[in-house]
């Protein structure tokens, strides 16, 4: 099937616009983060246990009364709206790319990175509905924007069909699942990093005195990280198993310690360790957060180092 260059160009435009909108959203989030109210520890606690405590029949609603939003909060809300706009453009870019190349839009590293970032932002938006953490948006968008810029500038590849080894329905399943799980794991990675900052501050108010008080309470961050990881981890496991099934029919064995497979296995073990750490005395809190950050670092390492530096069977980056 020939490549439709018009659609490919539109896709590129949508990608660039999405990145630009994310940057704008990031700035707005930063405004709220910088000028918004300080989150007090006690107040945050209350938000966490909302619905618990001594409720009778009326559960505590969000502070009611005249809705009077201060300016930083308005910026925060605009930032969310911009993020949604960015996601729409981002989705458009991927769909157009797929139509242009006549296949699923995750056949090389540029496209993989785009899907990865999209899932990260969508995960963030979903978590935003459950946790009062809007002002963290900037911290999530920073790595997303960096990845999108690296993708758009350094890894860009023209829309084209994929090589025979990739022509399988497993490309649709394996790559999309892995990419979605990795994108989701970006959120707990970032949040765990912030947890470490906030926890250090709660233990000793002198540390990160400027940044930490404006972050949500440590246990909100911990819970957010845990819930996202718990969702992404089985998905990631499923993606690995799909990869093994595909490897069996493409490369002659389901597992061969190819560099990519190995690093994916290492990341899996680290996330398994995170789940165990959270249930082990002496490992909850900061240590578990370190493990989560380490897990995400391994995922990023796997994406860049293994694709670009080592040679293995997964060298499909299309960069070169």
């Amino acid at each position, binding site marked *: 099937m020939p490549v439709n260059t018009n659609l490919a160009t539109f896709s590129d435009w949508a990608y660039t616009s999405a990145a630009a909108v994310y940057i704008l959203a990031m700035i707005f989030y930063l405004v709220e983060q910088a000028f918004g109210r300080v989150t007090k520890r006690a107040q945050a606690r209350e938000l966490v*246990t*909302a*619905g*618990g*405590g*001594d*409720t*009778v*029949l009326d*559960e505590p609603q969000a502070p009611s009364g005249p809705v009077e939003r201060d300016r930083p909060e308005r910026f925060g809300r605009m930032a969310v709206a911009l993020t949604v706009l960015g996601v729409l453009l981002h989705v458009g870019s991927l769909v157009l790319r797929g139509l242009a190349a006549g296949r699923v839009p995750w056949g090389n590293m540029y496209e993989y990175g785009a899907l990865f970032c999209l899932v990260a932002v969508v995960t963030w938006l979903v978590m935003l509905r459950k946790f009062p953490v809007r002002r963290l948006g900037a911290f999530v968008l920073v790595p997303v924007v960096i990845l999108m810029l690296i993708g758009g500038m350094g890894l860009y590849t023209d829309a*084209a*069909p994929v*090589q*025979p*080894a990739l*022509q*399988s329905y*497993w490309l649709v399943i394996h790559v999309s699942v892995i990419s979605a799980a990795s994108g989701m794991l970006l959120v707990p990675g970032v949040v765990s990093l912030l947890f470490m900052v906030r926890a250090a501050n709660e233990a000793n108010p002198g540390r990160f005195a400027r940044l930490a008080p404006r972050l949500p309470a440590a246990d909100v961050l911990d*819970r957010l990280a*845990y*819930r996202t990881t*718990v*969702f992404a*981890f*089985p998905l990631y*496991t499923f993606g690995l*198993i799909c990869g*093994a*099934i*595909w490897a*069996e*029919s*493409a*490369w*002659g064995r*389901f597992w*061969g*310690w*190819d*560099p*990519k497979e*190995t*690093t994916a296995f*290492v990341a899996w*073990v*680290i996330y*398994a*360790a995170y*789940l*165990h*750490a*959270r*249930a*082990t005395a*002496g*490992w909850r809190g900061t240590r578990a957060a370190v493990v989560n950050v380490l897990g995400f670092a*391994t995922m990023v390492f796997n994406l860049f180092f*293994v694709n670009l530096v*080592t040679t*293995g069977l997964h060298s499909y980056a299309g960069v070169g």
Partner: protein
Amino acid sequence: MDSRPRAVLAFLRNTWRGLTAMRTALSLLFLLALAAMPGALLPQRSLNAPKVDQYIADHGWWGRLLGQLGFFDVYASVWFSAIYVLLFVSLIGCLLPRTVEYARQARAKPVLTPRRLERMPHHARSTVDTGVADVLAGARQRLRGWRLVEREEADGARSISAERGFLRETGNLVFHFALLGLLVSFAIGKMYSYEGQVIVQADGSEFCNSGVYNFDSFKPGLRVDGTDLDQFCVKVKDFHGSYLPNGQAKDYLAPIEYQSGDDLGTGTWRPYDLRVNDPLRTAGDRVYLLGHGYTPKFTVKYPDGQTRVGATQWKPDDPITLLSEGATKFDRPGVTDPEQQRKSQLAVAGLFAPSGVSPNGVLTSNFPELRAPEVAVDVYQGDLGLDSGRGQSIFTIDQSMVAKGALTKVKRQQLKVGEHIDLPDGTVITFDGVGQWVSLEVAHDPTQTYVLGFAVLIILGLGTSLAIKRRRLWVRATPTGDGDPSGRTVVEVGGLARTDQAGYGEEFTSLSRELLLAARGGRES
């Protein structure tokens, strides 16, 4: 007297306790991740042996040290095995008591309602105008699907203990046992598996999986001695590759015929289209299309009129343009004296381009398809060293024979199909045409279906254990008891998440709300 055995016992017990503690398991998990990493960073012998040799050569004593410590065979090394064996021993030690506990709990009743429900992490309370019995009936109704037990308490109060999410532990145990099963079937598979690679000319040539000697390379499992391979034969009829204008491969197809089982006796051949993602599965083995390349064909016409035809596969050097290199070697016919025969050998060695261009006098290829096949070759005459006792590559000539003067280069020339080289002694070498070859891999792994089965259990167990929350809920209905005859009742609800609290708050809120509303509604009806 008996202090020694006791000390030994104590030591064993403490070791066992230490090994099966969660902290140890956690450390072992980190060690496993750490130990697996060098396999991704350093070249591995099982994947690319020449690269390992190159690495050792480049890094001197450091490379040799790494080699001795097993860093180029990480997954077969003692330390890697030690870590995962310890991890799995620790896992078993953790699983056994948990399974016993699980079986006990499966039959146990939900625990007693705590005296002071307001001390529970989740709590709600209300006073309603219904009687105790109605409140509890309403609660039972609402708590359908929970494991319930109803108890009489002092002062006419009654309570319900409810528990839910028992499947979480089921999923957790399934996950961990499946992990064990996966490791065991993986290990057994490694013992009884084999894989072999072979190059077959795509001109109807045949390959039979009858013995190790038929393969170009063969990697057996520990318990495979190469006899008793699964019997089948494959005939490669042809090979088609199609490409994009930029030379990127679009599709590979090798039409083959195969026979296995009863067909071997009757001589029936069955057709199959072998493709990259589509191995042939027959007789318990899989046959894969790994790669392909070209076989330039040469005819050597000796001065005495005898001819010899040579068709040896050449090795692609450039994966995109398939510029290949190789050496086609000839023995002179009609020479009976072994010494003479050895010294009158001939080799055509050099480059082959499927779409040849020579931008500055050097042959190269600009497309992987056979558009303008061309060779640039050196012709050597003399002793190729085939009988020297040293192994030599089929793709090159032994340069040490040239250095020794036993082999001389007599001519260098570039040829298109049909052109020929005339040697000084009257020998004529014609470039007749080009054939194609495919490289096949035969793989056998008797346990991979079990591995897949355990992998599916892993997913199911993991999903269940992470999605389901274990939680408890208590409802206590106490008559107000202040002589109020209207039968007002204090309803208290308490909740506790057994495993992870995340998310129970929302569920508890809506549940307690419904329970209390139902109790109120009882009065209205």
